[in-house]
């Protein structure tokens, strides 16, 4: 069993030998579906080398690396983080559509940036430190 962190979520998944997992768990974690032509999402398919697919299992570390995203693990390899690929981040920002996000306020109420469509938004960060 491993804990896998994606940029926005956290999953507990049955894994072996790193990030080998069932195709259904791989889909839950990555949003990509195993098909004969590779790992697919909407119209896009990423061909997978034979070494990264065994029957209904996928090596998500190999897949994510192929997507260009960073994969890091804790020393005991029980917690993993899959990061967004730099190409994906740059392409989104260069499209100039403000990346959407949902964050809580101090009372735990979730707020989503796109709820403010129709208004100008001054999005600013601060910190106590």
């Amino acid at each position, binding site marked *: 069993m491993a*804990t896998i*962190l994606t*940029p*926005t979520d*956290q999953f507990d998944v049955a894994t072996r030998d790193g990030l080998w997992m069932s195709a259904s768990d791989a889909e839950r974690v990555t949003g990509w579906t195993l098909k004969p032509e590779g790992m697919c999402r909407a119209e896009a398919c990423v061909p997978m080398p034979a070494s990264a697919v065994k029957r209904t299992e996928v090596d998500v570390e190999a897949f994510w690396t192929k997507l*260009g*995203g*960073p*994969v*890091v*693990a*804790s*020393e005991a390899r029980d*917690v*993993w*983080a*899959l*990061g*967004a*690929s*730099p190409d994906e*981040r*740059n392409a*989104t*920002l*260069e499209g*100039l*559509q*403000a*990346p959407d*996000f949902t*964050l*809580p*306020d*101090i009372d*735990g109420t979730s*707020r989503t*940036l*796109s709820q*403010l*469509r*129709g*208004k*100008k*938004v*001054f*999005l*600013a*960060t*601060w*910190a*106590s*430190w």
Partner: protein
Amino acid sequence: MVVAVAEESRGADHARPWIEQAKSSYWQLVDTEHRLEDLYNLVNVPQAVWIDEDGRIVRPPETAGSTDHFRRMDLKTKTMSAEDQAERLAAREAYLDAVRAWVTTGKHALPASSARMNLPKVTPAIAEARTRFRLGVWLRVNGRAAEGDLQMAEASRLHPESWSLWRQAADLDEVGKASGPEFWKRVQALGDRPYYPAPKL
């Protein structure tokens, strides 16, 4: 609409006193994992992004009203000269005036090509740094501080331009460390480079 986001890995309660004191009518959100910095490629606080009615970025991330005058403060008394204080205040006012002008007239919104040109690029090292930072925060929250600190230290090594990654890690280690002697040593090492690059208004 103002959306103020606290980059605060210690959690909402740590940001609460400031938020309650502000008594704001706008959104005050808490970002424990620095998700916004990942999405918008931010490196310091305060930084701001201007977003128009259609959800388009019209000014990419830039310093939101702060200046480098603090670098000349007397470290013993933690005070700035009257002249520096006045200049600092004037720069902040000028920035806020620009925000107000944008809201009422659209002034200072950049055409798409310049907005795009001024975007900081995400490199593979930055992407890995943010991923390690995310893992580091998780490890710390789950009682594995020493391991988490190692991930955060590696994150700062990979992305030395990010003050947020380093200062948040320092603060998690000990409140106050983010503006302690090690911070000042890092600021001095900037030499002629800015800590808060001035927005090009």
